[in-house]
């Protein structure tokens, strides 16, 4: 189970509404490389992970991604307060607004609703960790792209923090992949998937 903490990992206090920025940043909630997909990916993959430390890492990073999802929702919420119809239309936010008003909804910046097709849980730890490494880099690139498009210092500090976390997670997943391959057949670590091909306790 989880216990909610009534605090963010990094403070968010945005002074100026900006619906265009809200739309851009919303991709990190429900877009193809966003935080919702990240949390679901790791929290589902961990059940079939064969080692206790790898299960622990997937649980912890998946949990942190839930917190990041809340941070992106917070940014969207604060950027869409007190909007006039004129501001909504000028920012190109009318498509989002007509469907969701200023509710927080998981979709990409282009308006494509979130889908579980963005993630995989393959039941093979080499495959899953390799996907996780790519996922962290894709999220990091997305944050880089967001930083190319926005210049509000109230927001860029938060985005830089989240970008840095992708780099840390990439590092931890790289170490996890190394730990796993060290424990498998070092001549051919694809030869079997622990837990399927060799039903012994490997912990």
């Amino acid at each position, binding site marked *: 189970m989880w216990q909610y903490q*009534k605090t963010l990992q*990094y403070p968010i206090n945005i002074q100026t509404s900006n619906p265009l920025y809200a739309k851009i940043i919303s991709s990190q909630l429900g877009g193809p490389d966003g935080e919702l997909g990240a949390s679901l990916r790791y929290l589902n993959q961990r059940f079939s992970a064969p080692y206790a*430390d790898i299960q622990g890492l997937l649980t912890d990073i998946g949990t942190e991604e839930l917190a990041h999802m809340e941070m992106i929702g917070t940014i969207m919420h604060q950027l869409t307060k007190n909007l006039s119809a004129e501001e909504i239309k000028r920012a190109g936010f009318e498509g989002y607004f007509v469907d969701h008003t200023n509710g927080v909804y998981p979709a990409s910046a282009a308006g494509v609703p979130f889908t579980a097709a963005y993630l995989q849980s393959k039941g093979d730890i080499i495959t899953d960790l390799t996907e996780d490494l790519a996922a962290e880099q894709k999220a990091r690139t997305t944050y880089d792209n967001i930083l190319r498009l926005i210049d509000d210092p109230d927001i860029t500090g938060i985005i830089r923090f989240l970008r840095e976390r992708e780099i840390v997670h990439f590092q931890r997943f790289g170490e996890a992949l190394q730990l796993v391959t060290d424990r498998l057949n070092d001549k051919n670590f694809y030869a079997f998937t622990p837990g399927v091909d060799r039903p012994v306790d490997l912990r």
Partner: protein
Amino acid sequence: MSVQDDLKTRFMAIRFSIWDLHLYLDTHPDDAAAQALLEKYRAQYEEISQAYVEKYGPYTSADSPKAAAWLKAPWPWDNTRGNC
């Protein structure tokens, strides 16, 4: 946000340091220096957490024997600049 050396900033920084060390220890469980640093931050957290809860309200429901206090403390998405 301007960096303020206040209770809230320190609390958040200690919480984050504990979390990041915890992640590091997932893949480096035998790193004694990291473990010692984690214990140092945990001790700082123990020192500061009561003062934080008294000033800003409970941050987990377990800190809050009264439901009203839990609900009254600001939600993380509330814009609190000027209050802290």
